């Protein structure tokens, strides 16, 4: 890692002095807009998340939570389940598959649905070695879950972080009984259908929150633990092109030092959209080095005093290299398609929100960063292709 890189990283957390935003040209409504101070202590929690999975291994209550399937599979594998369960969708061949990132970091392909679709398929249960499997009934559930990762901060010992990741909420739960109690001797196929399922929320895999849809097949048994199989699928909902889509235009600056005016052509973008814009330099009296546009995702979880906000910078897109002169205008053209974006989620089930911001950052020669953050709304446009 070169010095320069290090500087950039550290620079991101430097304190930044205040900057005056001017709204409109009347000058009356000038207000100070605060520059956010990044406390370096916040760097540490970030690191913890990255090794989150290893923590989970030592957490006993996570076993049947269903949230950490991989761990469960691992534990179950020791006992070799007496039968194999396969869940397949009726239109599995033709249905679109999208990549889905699992907790273990692996990406698998998962079927894609949207709200109001009927989920039709079949469950195949195949006893291993033709062993007889006794059960108290077989059922399939369609669950919509939100998993939140909470932590309480101790202001004395940072290491004593407490993760409450067992908080799961099923916001949707549909059940179909597939079989009455009995015995299974051989491979058996159960068709199932959930028609016109209301799935208002999209699947989401964030830093502190996860929203997923699963099909859970349970073979209930006496005395021994149930045999459970999960099949996750992805839900995406499409919104039409918004009728009102104003541009974002604003003049910001530091008095007598820097006045810029920036303009983004729209305030609402679809996921494959292009951000087009321009930055006009009205007054430049500081030696700028470069300028970049950051796309930031702000994920806020919980509510009330337990709200935790996590912001991640998805990309830094360099817009300008060198020092501009007064009167210069710098074009912006940023294709959004390479980034893994989601639509903006507003207060999903009172549990979390995901918002997107464009952060325009100007860096001067002393590596001071001046920035202005603007929220943009993301939406998913039905892909015609």
């Amino acid at each position, binding site marked *: 890692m070169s010095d320069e890189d290090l500087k950039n990283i550290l620079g991101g957390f430097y304190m930044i002095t205040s900057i005056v935003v001017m709204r409109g040209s009347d000058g009356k409504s000038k207000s100070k807009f605060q520059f956010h101070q990044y406390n370096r202590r916040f760097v540490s929690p970030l690191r913890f998340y990255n090794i989150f999975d290893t923590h989970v291994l030592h957490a006993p209550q996570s076993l049947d939570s269903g949230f950490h399937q991989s761990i469960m599979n691992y534990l179950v594998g020791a006992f070799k389940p007496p039968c194999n369960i396969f869940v397949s969708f009726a239109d599995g061949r033709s249905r679109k598959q999208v990549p889905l990132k699992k907790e273990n970091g692996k990406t698998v392909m998962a079927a894609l649905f949207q709200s109001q679709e009927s989920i039709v398929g079949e469950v195949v249960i195949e006893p291993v070695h033709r062993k007889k499997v006794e059960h108290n009934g077989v059922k399939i559930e369609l669950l919509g879950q939100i998993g939140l990762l909470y932590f309480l901060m101790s202001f004395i010992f940072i290491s004593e972080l407490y993760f409450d990741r067992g908080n799961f909420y099923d916001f949707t739960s549909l059940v179909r009984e597939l079989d009455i109690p009995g015995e299974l001797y051989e491979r058996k196929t159960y068709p199932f259908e959930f028609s016109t399922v209301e799935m208002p929320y999209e699947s989401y895999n964030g830093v502190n929150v996860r929203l997923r849809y699963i099909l859970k097949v349970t073979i209930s048994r006496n005395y021994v633990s149930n045999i459970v199989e999960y099949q996750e699928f992805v839900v995406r909902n499409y919104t039409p092109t918004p009728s009102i889509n104003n541009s974002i235009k604003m003049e910001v600056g530091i008095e007598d030092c820097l006045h810029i005016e920036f303009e983004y052509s729209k305030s609402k973008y679809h996921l494959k959209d292009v951000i087009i814009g321009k930055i006009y330099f009205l007054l430049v009296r500081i030696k700028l080095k470069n300028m970049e546009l950051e796309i930031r995702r702000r994920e806020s979880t919980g509510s009330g005093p337990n709200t935790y906000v996590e912001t991640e910078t998805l990309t830094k897109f*360099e817009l*300008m*290299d060198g*020092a501009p*002169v*007064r*009167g210069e205008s*710098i*074009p912006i053209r940023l*294709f959004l398609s390479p980034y893994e974006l989601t639509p903006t989620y507003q207060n999903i089930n009172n549990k979390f929100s995901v918002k997107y911001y464009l952060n325009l950052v100007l860096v001067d020669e002393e590596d001071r960063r001046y920035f202005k953050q603007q929220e943009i709304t993301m939406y998913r446009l039905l892909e015609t292709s």
Partner: protein
Amino acid sequence: MIADGVEDEEKWLAAGIAGLQQNAFYMHRALDSNNLRDALKYSAQMLSELRTSRLSPHKYYELYMRAFDELRKLEMFFKEETRRGCSIVDLYELVQHAGNILPRLYLLCTVGSVYIKSKEAPAKDVLKDLVEMCRGIQHPVRGLFLRSYLAQVSRDKLPDIGSEYEGHCRGCCGICASKLYGDEQIVGADAAPGTRPRKGEKREREERAKRSCNICDPQLVGKNLHVLSQIEGIDLDMYKETVLPRVLEQVVNCKDEIAQYYLMDCIIQVFPDEYHLQTLDVLLGAFPQLQPTVDIKTVLSRLMERLSNYAASSADVLPEFLQVEAFSKLNNAIGKVIEAQPDMPILGMITLYSSLLTFTLHVHPDRLDYADQVLGACVKKLSGKEKLEDKKATKQIVSLLSAPLDKYNDIVTALKLSNYPRVMEYLDSETNKVMATVIIQSIMKNKTRISTADRVEALFELIKGLIKDLDDAFHDEVDEDDFKEEQNSVARLIQLLHSDDPEEMFKIICTVRKHILGGGPKRLPFTVPPLVFSSLKLVRQLQGQEENPFGEEESTTPKKIFQVLNQTVETLSNIPAPELALQLFLQCAEAANDCDLEPVAYEFFTQAYILYEEEISDSRAQVTAIHLIIGTLQRMHVFGVENRDTLTHKATGVIFLLFHMFRKQLSIFQLYLTWALVFEQYSAKLLKKPDQCRAVYACSHLFWVDDQDNVKDGERVLLCLKRALRIANAAQQMSNAARGSAGSVTLFVEILNKYLYFFEKGNPQITVAAIQSLIELITTEMHSDSSTPDPAADAFFASTLRYMEFQKQKGGAIGEKYEPIKV
């Protein structure tokens, strides 16, 4: 950011090249395996090496060239890729995903060139987009190179008219071109990144200037300008309507003095003269809008220089100049610029006017009023200011004033410019002199004849720095040689003034006289003689003509001239330069003699005598003076041709006046006697023996004038010579007594020569025997023990003997005469 040391820079360059090559290697591998994603990834990484700020443009260029080569391969790959069915539009989008702007734009330009060739989109749109996106690079060096790259790759694709990409309107070409060009130039502006003006920080300014210079990597800028000039699509209309206004707008907006200067200069240098001429309005209109500190004068001067050269190139284009009223436009523009920049140093102002003048002279050689107008404007601007202290400014004025001289090769024309002397007034005396010298030299070079008194008057008004001490006479620390040089040139000038009309010539002389008389003691010795001689020339001219060809009332008579001369020379004797005055009086006397103006000659002689008596005290000077007087007197035929008695009487009067001793009638012989007395009187005290001796034998000529039979008194001649011999002898003895050795025999040899002269002339008193004995005397003297060997005298004697031998051998009447002499 420029490297601290060359070594470090080398190191960084090496590191940059290494990184570049490594990524280029991976890129090649990706290209070979048709892996587009990897190819883009590694090419972007490769291009990231160009993001360095540590290299100077020169080193950066090395790095850039390597990247350039690699990008060619990438371009080939993109071409193949599109052939394989990859959409060029997708490719165009794909390369824009790169996060760093510099690699992104390099890739974009590379794809863009393929895009244009594919003709899937109008070339102008693609180009416009590329140019627009390139604005993201505001760093001067990197920006310059990037734009250069863009220019390179799109050079053959710019939508020229008539090219295969035709079909776009001509205006578009203009837009593209001007954008490209403008952006290119804006880079120059960025050369000075500190946009905050800081007063007093001179160092920073210098640094900026230096950096700006660095930016002006001639290779690159040259390349880009070349590209622009290759765009055939730009014709005059488009240039006028699109290109120039846009470029100027860019220039005005960039607000940086160094850049603006550079840009304006570029514009002027890059486009053809004809275009400039036709768009003079627009171009000039931009000047007052530039920053007040921009070095406009140089730019404008260059423009005018170009236009002048254009005008000079062919006479056909001159009507165009008239048509667009180039002069008045330029004149107005200069006025505006000077108004807009109140801080402009005088130097700048003068430079502007100087160039304008040059322009005017080239374009409107016939319009003298224009030139005068320029000078007038210059005077107006200069007025209210003290005399110029600034050396450079004065230098400029000199060149300003020299311009008309050079052009017209004729001071007469310059003399017609009424404002000319007024401009000169603003020079300090030093420069004034220089200017005057320039003027004189011009006259000399061109042998200009200034033949009217009015012009002479004007001319002397111009060069008065040379002929008078201007106001500040006290700090006259001029180098003696320089002063002489100057005055000599004035003297030459005076010689050049000539008119065939005696009347006018006389006027000229009077004018000159009027001017030079104020010159003071130091100048008069230089200036009076030429005036005297040119007057004498006039006298002789008049003399050559028929008796009084003019009417009775004719004012110019030799007499009158002599009067003037008398007064003139008299001033010399006052200053004091008696020797010179004496010589001049004698010259005048001789001329008067030739004119048969006896009283005048007499008067001049009187003056000469008075001078000799009263002023000349140095013995050597006296000797010279005596020789001169004797020489002149000898030629004076007026004395004694007609009325010898009267003449002698008058001559006596002269002598009387001189010595206050004799008041009796003297013949020429008596005159000589008087002279002898004079010598005896004065020489005893003043003259050294040899001088005395020489004076005496010189006097002998007074008694023997070849062409006047009545002045051939052989006896007196012999007397003179004998006397001379005596003196020589005495000198010899004195020297013997004083130093113990005999002096040189030179005097004897000289006297021998006189003997021979008169012998040949047939003076009966000079006998063979006398000569013979003299020769013997000399020989004895030479061989005596006490004599000091004197090679010069020996040689002189030997050659005298040889001469005699020669005459003998030649035979004839003279030879026969020599025959009896034994050597």
